């Protein structure tokens, strides 16, 4: 992937949005001609690559997927989140069949991941328009830092503020690998396609985006986002964990929101005069 010069890097405000929400959505970012090609490509399937394959090897120059992820906007987001030359550890074409009767249980992909200084990113591409009836992906904003294991969250059918994806053709969602999500029941007469790739960073995820607005007050506002499904007290712990992730991403060990981390780290060692 040609990401040495990433053309459209995220801003700090957008990165902060990703850190609080666990996803970034780009509507109709893929041009119609590529979407038209995608339907046939995805129907035929995309050749598997071993876990940990560099994206440039998994997707040869000129291939459909390579052209997709080299689109300016997508390459810029990928570079900002996982850096240059990421590996892929799997990809899959997900199809929600018409009238299939069941939704997926709410889940996070893979298993519990306790890394506080690294994360994988999943690209989810919808080549066709997704209506509410077609079973667009359900996701839960702000759930990505919860330490839960895969589909153990299946009991949670609905959470206040959940997102039921409805989008135009060519929409791409970048998702933190820990985000709770699931394919909803397709109550329409049309299949719903989605192509997903999981990217692993190969460099330290630190200041990989355009940091010129790092001190914009909107950064802290994004990081301080609340979500309607948070229990009141746990919502405070969510801020605590976001602060730790932002410190890791920026290298700024003094960053805080409302003193949440600083307060409980204060252990003066000096003796009183």
């Amino acid at each position, binding site marked *: 992937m040609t990401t040495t010069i990433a053309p459209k890097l995220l801003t700090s405000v957008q990165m902060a949005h990703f850190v609080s929400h666990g996803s970034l959505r780009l509507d109709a970012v893929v041009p119609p001609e590529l979407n038209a090609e995608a339907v046939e490509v995805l129907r035929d399937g995309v050749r598997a690559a071993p876990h940990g394959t560099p994206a440039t090897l998994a997707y040869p120059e000129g291939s459909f997927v390579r052209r997709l992820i080299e689109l300016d906007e997508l390459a810029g987001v990928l570079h900002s989140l996982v850096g240059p030359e990421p590996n892929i550890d799997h990809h899959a074409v997900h199809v929600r069949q018409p009238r299939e*009767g*069941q*939704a*997926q*249980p*709410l889940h996070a992909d893979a298993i519990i991941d306790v890394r506080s200084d690294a994360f994988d990113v999943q690209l989810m591409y919808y080549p066709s328009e997704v209506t509410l009836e077609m079973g667009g992906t*359900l996701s839960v904003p702000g759930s990505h*830092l*919860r*330490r*839960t294991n895969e589909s*153990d*969250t*299946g*009991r*949670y*059918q*609905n*959470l*206040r503020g*959940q997102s*039921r994806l409805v989008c135009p053709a060519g929409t791409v969602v970048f998702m933190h690998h820990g985000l709770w999500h*699931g394919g*909803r*029941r397709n109550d329409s007469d049309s299949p719903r396609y989605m192509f997903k790739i999981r990217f692993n960073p190969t460099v330290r995820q630190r200041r990989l985006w355009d940091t010129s607005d790092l001190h914009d007050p909107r950064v802290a506002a994004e990081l301080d986002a609340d979500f*309607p*499904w*948070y*229990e*009141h*007290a*746990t919502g405070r*712990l*969510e801020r*605590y*964990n976001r602060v730790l992730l932002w410190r890791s991403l920026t290298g700024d060990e003094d960053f805080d929101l409302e003193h949440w981390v600083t307060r*409980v780290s204060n252990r003066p060692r000096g003796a009183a005069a």
Partner: protein
Amino acid sequence: MSAPRPVPASTVRQRLLVLYLSTSALDSAVVGWAHYDGTGRTSPTTGDSEEPPYATGVAALCDGWRLIQAAQLIPPYPGHEYEVSYLKHEFFFEKLVDLGDGR
């Protein structure tokens, strides 16, 4: 000894409502919900509604749901005090429905 009389098959079925609340108080706000229907008449599933069925746990009681289980308050494991995980304030309710002859 006479043979035991056959027990008529029960026509009573359980409907379950699971509410997740903002605090451990039953009158706090609903933040999440799930339905399971033992009558088989409905098939609730993930992501099928946007608005909670009740504003609070007590509102469910007022509508005839019977509380059958409430989550305990368990201290965090030492060393894991700041971790976030599953929803803490989970309440199970039931309604018993008699299918009668129409099942």
